[in-house]
């Protein structure tokens, strides 16, 4: 089942984070949880971004958005905010945005 099939970004992101944190004694992951508080290495959030981009066929657009529009410390986002930001990128027109073709 793809993320699109399962109803959107938040369930997909939550599923990933639940899997990654199952041994970290953080309980279940919810939309209000700060990404910085999940006990993950911050570098893992980059992998998260990449996996979400791939899942939704965003090329580099989410990465670029978080980098520049506006520059955002991903660790300071809640799970819900991260999902919202992703949905904004999905909704935004992709024309002229450099990135690899969606798979």
């Amino acid at each position, binding site marked *: 089942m793809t993320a699109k099939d399962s109803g959107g970004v938040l369930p997909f992101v939550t599923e990933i984070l639940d899997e990654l944190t199952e041994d970290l004694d953080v309980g279940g992951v919810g939309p209000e949880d700060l990404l910085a508080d999940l006990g*993950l290495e911050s*570098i893992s959030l980059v992998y998260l971004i*990449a*996996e979400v981009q791939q899942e939704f066929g965003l090329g580099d657009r989410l990465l670029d958005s978080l980098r520049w529009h506006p520059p955002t410390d991903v660790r300071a986002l809640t799970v819900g905010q991260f999902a919202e930001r992703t949905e904004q990128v999905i909704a935004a027109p992709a024309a002229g945005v450099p990135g*690899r073709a969606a*798979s």
Partner: protein
Amino acid sequence: MSPTESRVVLFGLDGAGFPILDPMLRDGTMPNLAAVLDAGVAAPLRSTEHPLSPPAWASIMTGRPPGEHGIFDFVRLDHSGGTPAYTLISSADLRVSTVFDIASRHGRRVTALNFPCMFPPPALNGSVVPGYVPWSYLGRACHPRGLFRTLKEQARIEPRKLAVDWELERTAIQGLPADQLSRWVRLHVEREEQWGRILLHLMRSEPSDLTAVVLDGVDRIQHLCLHLLVAEPEDLTPEERDVRSACRDYFRVADGLLGEVLAAAGPDADLLVVSDHGAQLAGDRIFYANTWLAQHGLLTWHDDVAVDDASRVAMNGNTESTQLFDWDHTSAAALTSSSNAIVVHRATHRGLPGVPPEEYEAFCRRLRDDLLTARDPATGERIVARVLLRDEAFPGPAADGAPDLTLELRSPGFLSVLRGPDVMAARVRPYGTHHRDGVFIAYGPGIAPGTVLRPLSVVDVAATVLHLLGLPIPAGVAGEPAVDGMRPAVRAPRPDEEQRADVFTAVGVPPKGLDAAGEAEIVSRLRSLGYLE
């Protein structure tokens, strides 16, 4: 033995060269590898034109040079945004099939552990634990899904020990004081023990026809400790001797694992021990390539970029090197230390900043000529021994993604991308760097002991693996099997080469997962390896 019953173990020692191994083979530190050598064949294994782990391992995995497989560095260059940028490489960037793909397609089971360019993991017939993945993402990175949990429960792996301590590596890139080197080495001993647990668990519980692992501690240790390994013990301080002893303990552990692997593989498996490149002592001078470019009017620093006074090749922290430059007034820049390369700022349209397409070739040739005449202001010696243009260094259909000029420095080592006090500066700590000659050692029922091998290249490994497995070698594979080291019965040609057009079919159909990354944190991970800026 029928070719279809043959099995191969590919045991990778990242950064190992015979100059490092030979003393330990002689003095009993590595008895298993010594025995393998005695009963097998060996040759130096020539690395890629620029010897660096991702392109070289990719060549080992695919049997093709970087210009064909598409991996040139830890990062993928992107010129599409108007200024050069980079993102982390992934398995999606590999444009051709690997031996793991090919063996899988032929129904053979494979195990691939700790190889670069394997995240997201391809859906192989077997098991994949990719290299270069942080511990907290390993749960999503292994194939098949569920393997990670199995390894934790049954192989008792500890992910935090398995993965790299990135904070320490970030510091270590610039060299470590002697009192921290022992810890550094021990950390890698622990890591290899973890990889060993995974390897042996899978060999025993789910044996594969092709089992492959990379131990990457060799290269990490040589970068910081090569000067101690090659020194005479009596020339070292007691503290340095302790570090040297710890280094040898590392090789003892690696050799012990090799012995266990041989036992687990059984007598009918062929073993290949290979490295992606070798090692050598770095020169005592560091080239600040971007400072040289600035002096030649080709690069403009942003005003707030500080001058490095510590002979560093890369920045601490997470700033990307692309942010150091005023791209409106920059025609070329070195973006990563690892590549030893200069990237041309390609103007996307006439009138925009950068080098217009029609001037590109002349620009590169002129830059090459200027680099070849560059002199160290302090010594008067030439700085650059060789400059390879893109299509010279990386010919092939994927060359457009390659760096534009690749430098071979007269004083061996990686260039600095920082703003230097001058174009050259003294190196403050001894450092090991890469050498093009790695190792190839083969042993097993298919190998004819004592035969003299022709000179081998990293692209020959995949063909050798496929030949030993009794599998056809795809037509596009550039390498040739090392049949001169094989027993006559095994030398016989394998099934007809496949006429598959698999080159570049991977483009656009990457495995599930990453297709672009490279943001600050990931870059810092690469930087912490000592290569990237």
